[in-house]
């Protein structure tokens, strides 16, 4: 095809490709999806909990009165209104929002919970106690029946009268309420804590659906502001919960993506202009890089259901890498006055091998287990192949009329000469450096806390702690996990764990816990309860109860008949098909196999709790933080392995091309040495090294190897020109990766530092470790 038509096709297809990509792409901002591996059951559990767990969808809201009152002139409303009154109005308003599933004052259960409790009355003989053997003597003490009847009368006369009446008609001894005492005490504890300003809001969208959560948070604030204005502006609203963090993180990441993309593109453009003094060439090369970026995005969008915004941010840095290929062509063009076509033909084997090693590096990245990096690997593969292809077949057509002037980079030739002249001394120093660096390696501090890689939100954390102080504390990230193959076994295990937790609570090891009894009760425990019930509700017992009712002035006819236990147990499948499913949805964890139940914990001592649960089959303590830390260590190990494998595969491909082991080693040596020196520097500085640091170095190796390939092959037969081309590539790589350093998400500066250091050192070591090729 002629150059003219290649150019026309490119100009025509590029916007079309862009349109298809926009149509196809779904961008995800969920950090969790980027960071959390889902290749084992625990990781999947963790990812699921973070993504859609009931607790994760909850906001904790606190309305407080501000002191002192606002300045004169700003208050025009009713300033006598109390916190409780304003909170009550806010609950009414918020309940109307589409994104709100439920909102309720923290000190009392939502209405559907109360209705759900009442629905258990017919099953009272089967679920009145977790420990029927211990509790039955007191619950069925015949001498207490008169007092029980009197208590029932008082309950019927109390504000809870209509609720109690509905239960008493089916369960006159109110046995079913015995199991729910713990639930009642949770709300009573909360009532002691606050002045009525603590509210819980359950959102419909998942916590990490930041778009919906942003909308909801704005609506919450708007409703509050309007009520507060009416009340004279004397109140303030604080908010906490996972969605608050997810929205803040999303906002930070969005800013990072924009900043990195813009700065990276500008920096590469500026470096390019500095190198070639040609707007025309810049325009065409940027179009080639743009097309590579779009192809990478499209490939990722086709392979994965959603493209993460961090993939796009890191992908933007690839602009700097994939511009290496056109830059090499253009430097040779400018220095040797070649046509772009002859330059690209000359350099093609080196470009291909360079591209291959970079792809290997990114491919290895995809196998580190980091879900986000799987995307980046696909992105890199597609965009590097696209960049290579466009450089080979389209760029010469685009540059036909461009005039190129390659800038002379000061110091480049001098450094090459200096290395040549003092090679022996420098190599000696290098050898000493290698030994010293090797000795430093054992001092490396590995980062084991994954939290350090999250966006820094100290202010938000302080606010979160302040808000949580208004609520009785159930920790969303740590719980007791019960696993079994079937419901019955899982429930029996859960009940055994709850009995232990009862003892641990009495011993002060855990402040409180939210179990599943009596919402879900094993058939075994139901049978045990029913057996006790049948055993004690003898005719004599019934007569004593009736006498108590008569004495209290209650209807013997309506309350005196104690019904036998229902023949069939209350099955968990039926419970989960009812509205109770919503109440327990945060505690029933869907695993790939079997049943997983979680018992939520208040403040606790993890070690004593773990010891207290020892010996219970299928029961263990689960901590999201520990799990994340475990993942951090797993990622680190994998990334080190992939660093090794990546280097091995690169070596193999270079050997296949060169068939010379010395050349293979020389090609790899600058990048390997730079990795060693960087690790040693981090060890000396006490830098905590995470898997991201290792991944950054893996990338730098894949880039530096290109320099070795170009330098050794020296296809232009001019070592100065080749090293100039490498220097230009290094500059664009640093410009693009350096832009990542501006990001607030810690992942980005770590990668920026690792890659920039790696390529700079690798570039400097090239002429030292690889003898300057002769200009043939």
């Amino acid at each position, binding site marked *: 095809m002629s150059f003219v038509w290649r150019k026309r096709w490119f100009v025509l297809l590029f916007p079309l490709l862009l349109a298809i990509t926009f149509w196809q792409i779904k961008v995800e901002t969920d950090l969790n999806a980027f960071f959390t591996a889902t290749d084992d059951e625990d990781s999947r559990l963790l990812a699921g909990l973070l993504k859609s767990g009931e607790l994760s969808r909850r906001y904790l809201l606190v309305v407080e009165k501000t002191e002192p009152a606002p300045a004169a002139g700003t208050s025009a409303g009713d300033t006598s209104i109390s916190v409780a*009154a304003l909170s009550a109005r806010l609950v009414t308003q918020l309940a109307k929002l589409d994104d709100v599933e439920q909102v309720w004052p923290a000190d009392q259960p939502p209405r559907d919970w109360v209705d759900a409790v009442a629905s258990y009355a017919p099953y009272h003989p089967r679920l009145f106690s977790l420990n029927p053997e211990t509790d039955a003597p007191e619950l069925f003490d015949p001498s207490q029946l008169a007092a029980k009847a009197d208590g029932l009368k008082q309950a019927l006369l109390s504000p809870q*009268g*209509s609720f109690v009446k509905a239960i008493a008609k089916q369960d006159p001894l109110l046995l079913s309420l015995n199991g729910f005492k713990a639930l009642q005490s949770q709300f009573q504890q909360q009532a002691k804590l606050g002045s009525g300003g603590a509210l819980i809001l359950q959102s419909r969208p998942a916590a990490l659906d930041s778009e919906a959560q942003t909308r909801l948070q704005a609506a919450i604030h708007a409703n509050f502001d309007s009520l507060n204005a009416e009340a004279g502006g004397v109140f303030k609203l604080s908010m906490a919960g996972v969605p608050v963090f997810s929205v803040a993180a999303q906002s930070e990441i969005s800013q990072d993506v924009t900043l990195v993309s813009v700065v990276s593109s500008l920096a590469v453009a500026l470096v390019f202009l500095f190198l070639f003094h040609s707007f025309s060439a810049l325009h065409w090369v940027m179009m080639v890089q743009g097309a590579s970026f779009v192809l990478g995005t499209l490939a990722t969008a086709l392979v994965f259901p959603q493209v993460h915004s961090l993939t796009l941010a890191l992908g933007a840095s690839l602009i700097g890498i994939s511009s290496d290929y056109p830059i090499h062509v253009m430097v040779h063009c400018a220095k040797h006055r070649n046509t772009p076509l002859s330059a690209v033909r000359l350099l093609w084997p080196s470009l291909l091998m360079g591209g291959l090693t970079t792809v290997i590096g990114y491919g290895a990245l995809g196998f580190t287990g980091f879900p986000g990096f799987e995307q980046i690997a696909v992105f890199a593969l597609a965009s590097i192949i696209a960049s290579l292809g466009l450089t080979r077949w389209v760029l010469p057509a685009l540059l036909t009329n461009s005039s190129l002037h390659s800038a002379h980079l000061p110091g480049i030739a001098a450094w090459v000469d200096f290395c040549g002249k003092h090679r022996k001394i420098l190599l000696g120093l290098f050898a000493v450096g290698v030994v010293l660096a090797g000795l430093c390696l054992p001092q490396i501090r590995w980062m084991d806390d994954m939290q350090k890689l999250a966006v820094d939100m100290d202010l938000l954390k302080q606010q979160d702690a302040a808000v949580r102080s208004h609520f009785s504390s159930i920790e969303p990230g740590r719980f007791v996990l019960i696993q079994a193959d079937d419901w019955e076994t899982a429930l029996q295990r859960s009940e055994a764990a709850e009995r232990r937790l009862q003892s641990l609570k009495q011993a002060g090891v855990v402040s409180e816990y939210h179990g599943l009894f009596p919402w879900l009760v094993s058939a075994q425990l139901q049978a045990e309860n029913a057996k006790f019930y049948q055993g004690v509700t003898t005719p004599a017992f019934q007569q004593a109860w009736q006498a108590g009712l008569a004495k209290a002035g209650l209807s013997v006819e309506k309350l005196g008949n104690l019904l036998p236990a229902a023949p069939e147990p209350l099955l968990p499948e039926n419970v989960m098909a009812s509205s109770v499913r919503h109440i327990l949805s945060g505690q029933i964890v869907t695993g790939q196999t079997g049943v997983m139940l979680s018992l939520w914990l208040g403040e606790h001592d993890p070690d004593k709790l773990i010891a207290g649960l020892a010996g219970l089959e299928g029961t263990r303590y689960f901590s999201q933080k520990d799990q994340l830390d475990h993942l951090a260590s797993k990622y680190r190990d994998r990334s080190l392995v992939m660093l090794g494998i990546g280097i091995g595969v690169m070596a193999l491909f270079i050997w296949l091309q060169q068939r010379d082991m010395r050349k293979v080693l020389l090609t790899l040596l600058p990048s390997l040495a730079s990795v060693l020196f960087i690790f040693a520097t981090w060890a000396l500085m006490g830098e905590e090294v995470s898997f991201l640091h290792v991944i950054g170095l893996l990338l730098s190796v894949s880039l530096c190897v290109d320099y070795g390939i170009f330098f050794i092959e020296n296809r232009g037969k001019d070592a100065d020109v080749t090293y100039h081309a490498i220097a230009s590539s290094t500059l664009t790589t640093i410009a693009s990766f350096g832009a990542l350093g501006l990001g607030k998400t810690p992942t980005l500066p770590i990668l920026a530092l690792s890659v920039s250091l790696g390529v700079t050192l690798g570039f400097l070591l090239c002429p030292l470790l690889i003898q300057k090729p002769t200009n043939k």
Partner: protein
Amino acid sequence: MTIKRVLFLLLALFPIAGFADDAVLAELLARIRQTGQAQFSYEETRILELAAEPWHGQGVMLSAADGSLVKLQLQPTRVIMAITDQRMLYWDPQQNQRHNAALDSAGPAGEQIKVFRTILQGRADELQTSYDISAEKQGKQWTLRMTPKPELTADALPAIEIAGDDKDEQRRILIKQADGESTEYRMQKASEAQQQEYSLQRLLLEASGE
């Protein structure tokens, strides 16, 4: 729940004296809004579905201009029930039962109380959307009947009947639930000496457990 409705009614409708038409009702509601601190002694008779016989109680009721209301039951046992600050308080020392809940989250009971709050605030328009109001006067005796509108029966609003005489010394308030339960109050204004005996604020603190 019945008790709470009655508490509001007692205060809200105590001054009503035989008016039946909307104009008179509006005038009465305006007077209700101006109701300041007041105290009454009462006798209560409740007919419960699950009780074999009517239940009797007696005590005092105290109200404040801000809408706070305390019902102090003295017989047969001491029980405090109060409404203040959009919250409902209940304290039964003998059973050691204490409740403290937002009115808006108190389910049907809370919904019904809102009706009485509406009465207290004299919002006749809102009241007339839920109730048909009729009045009857025979000699010195008068009766005001509030019947839930037929289309609102699903909301289970109670029917309310308030009766009194020209002297305004005694009132009888009858509340009939949709499920057949009923509560009757016979109330009398407290004397000066009786009014010194109880403090609304102290009773509120006791009920809230502070």
